[in-house]
Each structure stands twice: as C-alpha cells, then as structure tokens.
C-alpha cells in the first residue's frame, strides 16, 4: 500500500510539473501583449513597452518559466500583473468559494444520485427506473445556463425566495441562500451521471455471485445490501464523483458567470482574459493539485473498498 501511495504521489508531481509547463507555454504564446492587455487599447505604445519591460516579460519563455517554477517551489506564486498584489491575496478566497459550492453540490447530489440509481436498479425495467433514467439523462444534457435561468426566474425573480446569486459573502444564512441556486443547477447536471453509475453498479452487484452466495448463506436483506451490494456498487460511482470534483472546483465558468459567483472558474477565466499569467498559473496549479488529491483519495477509497485493487497496486 505504501509503495502504491508513493508511486501515485510521484506520478502526481510529474503531472503537475507538466501541467504548469503547458499552461505557462500556452499563456506565453497567447496572442497579444500583457502590457497592452493591462493598459488597454488606447494606451500609448511607449507605455505598453515600458510595462512589459517592468514586468520582465521580454526574456525567453524558458527562463521566465524557470523563475516562476523556482518561486512557486518556495511557495511564492508572485504578484498579479493586474492587481499588482500577491496572487495569494485573491486565490484563497476564490478557492474557498468554489470549495463551498462544490461541497454544497455534493451534499445535494450524492445522496440523491445514489438513492435514485439504487432505486432504479431495484426497479429495473419498471416505470420508476425509466422515469429516473430519463429525468437524469434529460438534466445531464440540458445546458446549465438553461437550468440556471429557470431556477433564477422561478425562485429569485418570481417568488423572490432566494437571491439570484452573489459572491457568497455575509452571514452563514446569507451564504447558504446565495449558494442554493448554483448548487441546485450543478446538482441537476450531475444527478444523471451519478444515478446512472450507481444504477449500473447496483445491477452488477445484485447479479454477482457473491451477492447470491451471501443471500443463500442466510444474511438479511439489509446485511446483503450494506456489506456486498452497495459497497461494490459504489466503486464506479466514487470514481465519477472524484472526477467531477476538479470540474466543480475550476470548471464552472458558465454557472459562476450566470450566478456572479466569484469562484476559481471566474478567476481563471478573467486571468486568461487579462493575460495575468501569475494569477492564471497559480489558479490552474491549485485546481491541478486539488484534482490530483481527489483522484488519489478516490483511488485509495476504491482500494479500501475493493481489496483486489489494493493487491494489484502492491504488486
């Protein structure tokens, strides 16, 4: 298990280094100069040149990358070109905001998805199964801006029960209110995936020999479900949930824009728009690290649930 863990961590580090190189390279070759992006279209060219020089943007890309990587290794992600302030003044707030939204979404969607999937599996082929499957698929393929707009129109504009978004600041009550609609929107998108995986896993587990054996040896239905069916049915579901975490953390541009929710997705998009390379690099790096950790945790959880994975890893 330790070797498995070390190997996974080594792979994660390599992946992060490659990720940082690719993002830095792409950010550096994006059309347009940083000075122009910051000072705006109507700034004098001399001012643009001065700023590019001041920001040290005239050197070769690899030298600039190595400088960034050296600083990042020491925990210094540099100063935002846009705000002229440390990147870390902005990143934690956006990270926490995204994390809150991700957790709120998971709190809603995991129980709903798993229960829905399990019910569909138990009712396989019956109307309940069809309804859950069709609703899940329909929500999954409906663009989030459609779901979001419907929720906003109903709950914010018409009923005025909830705010149409916001940054999630203020009291806990205000934060909860602000997070409900974006979390529901994301839950609607993810429900179909999770329910489908949970359904497939449950159907497989119900048909497996070990379930039949467990039933035949006299275990109660609840024991069979808890120890054998759900434990095995959850394996693919956990992988799906883990893969969605990085999406929930950094890929919510549409949802964050629609609800004006100031999370990592918006921060990354604005940083790319403004050619704010230090902010972009740090944000992507954080999403990358988080994604690695979540994947690793998912793998460890899978290994814990399924001894075969653990043993294969050890070999």
């Amino acid at each position, binding site marked *: 298990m330790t070797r498995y863990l070390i190997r996974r961590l080594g792979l994660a580090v390599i992946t992060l280094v490659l990720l940082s190189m690719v993002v830095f390279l792409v950010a550096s070759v*994006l*059309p*347009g*100069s940083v000075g*122009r*992006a*910051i*000072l*705006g*279209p*109507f*700034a*004098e*060219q*001399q*001012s643009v040149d*001065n*700023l590019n020089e001041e920001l040290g943007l005239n050197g070769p890309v690899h030298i600039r990358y190595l400088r960034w990587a050296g600083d990042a290794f020491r925990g210094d992600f540099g100063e935002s*070109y*846009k*705000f*002229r*302030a440390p990147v870390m003044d*902005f990143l934690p*707030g*956006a990270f926490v905001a995204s994390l809150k939204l991700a957790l709120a979404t998971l709190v809603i969607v995991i129980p709903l998805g798993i229960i829905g999937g399990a019910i569909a599996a138990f009712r396989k082929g019956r109307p309940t199964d069809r309804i859950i499957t069709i609703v899940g698929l329909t929500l999954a393929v409906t663009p989030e801006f459609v779901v979001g*707009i419907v929720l*906003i129109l109903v709950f*914010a*504009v018409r009923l*005025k029960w909830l*705010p*149409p*978004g*916001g*940054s999630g*600041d203020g009291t806990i009550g205000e934060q909860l209110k602000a997070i409900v609609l974006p979390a529901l929107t994301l839950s609607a998108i993810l429900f179909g995936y999770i329910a489908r995986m949970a359904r497939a896993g449950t159907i497989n587990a119900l048909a497996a020999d070990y379930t039949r054996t467990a039933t035949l040896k006299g275990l109660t239905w609840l024991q069979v479900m808890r120890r054998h069916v759900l434990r095995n049915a959850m394996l693919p579901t956990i992988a799906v949930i883990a893969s969605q975490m990085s999406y929930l953390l950094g890929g919510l541009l549409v949802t964050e*824009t*629609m*609800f*004006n929710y*100031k999370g990592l997705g*918006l*921060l990354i998009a*604005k940083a790319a*728009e*403004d*050619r*704010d390379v230090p902010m972009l690099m740090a944000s992507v790096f954080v999403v990358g690290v988080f994604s690695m950790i979540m994947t690793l945790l998912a793998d460890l959880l899978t290994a814990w649930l399924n001894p075969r994975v653990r043993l294969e890893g050890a070999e």
Partner: protein
Amino acid sequence: MSSKRDPRQLDAIRRSQGEIGNHVIDEYAAGRLTRRAFLVRGTIVGMSVPTIGALIAACGSSDDAGQDATAVDEDTGNTEDTSGGEDTSSEEDTGSTAAAALLVIGSGTPSAASANLDPVLINDQNGLTILSSVGQTLLTSNPDLSLSPLLATEWSPNADGSEWTFKLNPAATFNDGTPVTAADVVATMERLVDPDNNSNALSAFEVGRLSPGGITAVDDNTVLFRLDGPMGNFPYIVSSDNYNSFVLPASVTDTSAFATANIPTTGAYMIESYDGVKGATLVRNPNYWGPAAPIEKIEFQFIDDLAAQITAFTSGELDVMSQFSVSGGESLLDNPDVNVIEHPSTAHRQIHLRTSKGPFADKRVRQALAMAMDRGAIIDGLFSGKANIANDSPFFDVFPSTGTPVKQEYNLDKAKALMAEAAPDGFDTTLYGFGTQEIPDLAVIVQNAARELGINITIEMRDDYYDNYWVSWDESVPGSDIGITDYGHRGVPDVFLAAPLKSADKGGVWNGAEFANPTYDALVDEYSASTDLQSQQAASAKIQTLLVDEVPIIFPYNYNYLSAVKTNISGVVTGAMGYVYTDQAAKS
C-alpha cells in the same frame, strides 16, 4: 429676442469677460448662436450658469427669459447635482432621506488597468463608475456637453486660447479636511503628463497641447495652464471628460494602490473596502465640502454578464445598473418598475479602411462601401433606434461645432458604379475586430453590404485585435485593411479628430487607416485653435466635406447611453462617459 435687450445688464456682464467671452456674447446677441450652443460655448470659456441665464434674460424678452432660465436649469440639472454647489433643493433632499442606508450599484469588473482604481491608469467606465463618487475634477462635462464648475469655480483663456487660468473653489477640501490648493492641481496634472508614469491621459493631453512643465500655481487658488499652442476646447481636457484628472493632494507620490491606500479625495464618498474581483463599498465623506450625501453607503457589485446583472436588478438585489445595452436589455426598456436614463452620447464605432495600401487604397472603393451601408436600418436593427446616424466624420449631430452636418448618402447604385470603375472583379479581404457588444453584428452587416459590391469579407474577431490588427505600430505589426474599433464618449470631438485620423507624425497615434493628408492635418489644427463656435463650425464643415469624400473611416453611428434605476431611487445622475453620480441620490 433682441427687442427687449437690456444693454446695461449686458455691459455689466461684458466687463467681467475676456475677449473670447465677449465674442461668444456677441454671437449670441446677434442671433448666430442658439441657446443650447450659447450654453455650451459660454461654459467652455468659463461663464457660470447664472451668468449665462442672466445674459439670456438680458438678450431676450421676459417670457423668453423665463423659458430660457428653465432650459438652462434642465440642461444643467445634473450639473448642480454634481457640483456640490448651491442647489438648495438637494439640501432638502438631504434632510428628508438622511436615514437611507445603502444604495447598491451593479457594474462590470474594472479592467486590468483600472483594477486598483489608480487615477493615473484607469481606462474604463467600470472603474470610473466607482471613482465618480470618490474623486472630482476641476470641471464637470455634462450630458448636454456643457461644462460646469466643480473644484474650479472660474476659468478663462487668454486672447488666443493658448493659456487658460482656473480659479479654485476656496471651500473645496479633501476628505481629511485639508483645502484643495493650486499646488495639488499642479502635482496631479504634472503626474498625468509625465510619459514615465504610463498615464492613460497622455493622449488627451497631447490633443490638449499640454506638456510637462506647462502647469503653474499662480497663487494658492489659481492655476495657469500654458499650452504648446491655442486650444479652444482645453477646459474639457481638465474636466470629467478626462477621467484620469481627479485631483489628489500634492503630497501623494504613489497612486498605484489607490483603492486601498486611503489617499485623500474630494468626493462625497470615501472607499471603505475594495475587492477587485467582487466589488467595493463606499462610505459618506464626513468632511465633504458640498451638501452631505443622503445615502450612507454605496455598494458596487461587479457583475460582468449583462443577463446576470439584469436578473440581479429585476430581483431587487441592485438599485442601479450603471449601463446596459439595447441588445440584451430589452426587458428593461418597458418595465414600469424601472427608470431608464438615456443620454445621447458620442460613443461610437469606427470602421477603418487602410488608405496607404491594399484594396481600400482606391478612394472609390472606400466611398462605395460607405454608400452601401443603410445606416437607418443599422441603428434600428442594432439599437432599436436608440442611436444616431453618423456621417463618416466624428462631427456627430450632438456636437455644437458640427453645424450643418455634411451627410454621407446611402446609394447602392452609385456604390456599384464606383466599384465597377475601381475594382470590377471585386476582391477578398479580412475584417478584424474585438468581439464585444454589438461589434460582431456590425461586422456581419458590413460583410453583407460589401457582398453587394462584389467584396468578399472574411470576419475575424480576435482578442489581439488591438495589438496586431488595429494600428500597425511598427513593421512587425500587420494592422488591417479593414477593422472595427470601439470608442467611448467625449464631450468634444478633438480626440476623435486627432488620434485616429491625423498623420502618424502629427499625433495620429491610433491611425489604423494610415490616413495621411496634410490638408486634413491643417484643418484639424485650425479647428483645435478656434476659440469661437463660428470658426469651429467653419473648420468643421471643411473637415466633414473632406472626410465624407476620402472615407478613411466609416463612422456608422453614435449610440445612446442607457442606465437603469429603480423607481424608488431619485437623484442618481449618470454620464455617457460611465459616471454614476450618487452625491444627491435618495431612496424612498
């Protein structure tokens, strides 16, 4: 009007005016200026609104005077709101709404240059929307394009308009209680004209002919601007038209962290907290030198997406939307809970056609494309009519100096005939632009118009338009044969006349059309040096005729500036530049 003129009153006012001021009075008295033009021209040379009102009354009948006075008040209503001056009605407002706590304004996120609200760098209306409640300029440029006093109470030129003297309001103070002095104005302006500071105002001061060392403190309350040459519209360069020129204390040396540095300012509000990603909170300035603001706090929420902003507004989260466009904002236009503030503005798009080489080097091709564009249909389609037809020069109808506009005709047959002579086989080209607001739609309209002439246009909306396809800064930058550029509002056309159209070595720093015409350059110099409206209109007529014939740039329209305010909010004044004045805002 002249039948009831009061010569004694007129003479008394004349004695207080300089040569240029008296010329303006003469022109009005002779009936060669309309009241509106008199108001604008009078304020440019430093006449106060009461003086203008008195002159209108002195030159006209008593009935006229009453109407004129009303007209002046209407025209300058926001002026008095924003000047912090003598408006007693606003003091009444203050008393009746003192309990009002919070006004929430929605705007976009400030650009990278405006991210710290640094007055030296700020370059967009989102940053300006906040600063307009915090800082103040010497003068206010009003929606009707007149000027009114703010930190300066009087201003006047010398005989040829090459020197301008500004008297400061002795009551004006910064929020730490210290008075605003001439030394503060000198330091502020010198910082802005210094090329080493990357100031966003460099282009404006280049047009204003102000160079480093040209600003002098005559005494504590008097500032003298010595220009490099005559400039009739100079007061606009130190008005809110030049939004970088907020006056700061002379002791301030670093403005880079303005949003959080507690730098003293003169406005009705002070920055309490600022987050460049989320928004800002302002609190009432306890030492404000004008009437105290009724609202205790102003909160700005940054919402970039127009749909999200409209949703927040209609659901009650926002009280004010600083700006919205017709496209996407239709639901606000006929909403009974919303007051839409609409100003004619000079914000516009320019479609440059490269004159130095390529398919548009032939003047007939440029003329043909200009004539193939049905501008009436364009403004109906893109703006539901909330825009005005422009005629391929920056002399929009709203500028008094435009005089009688020289029209560009819409004539498809003539356009085809010109193309048949110049390029009978047609040609292919690429139109570049930055894909914001209605620009992609305008590009398609140009594409369709060009197709009628046998010109096959490929559209490329690019993020690096301003770097690579707008102006060919040097040989390594390609520029473009045809491109669309967005320009914001200005109170006078001087910047529009110079930067995009004058020869590169004469100040044409944004000359994407690579237009180089010595006659044009001389005419613009003539226009800029003119200190009276007749001379400006005379130069304007020649410039318009030249541009409508040469068509280096198609100016298809200038669009109206729209803001939305909830019906329970009063006293909010917006300006086409992006200002949201809140000092007399009240909430019922």
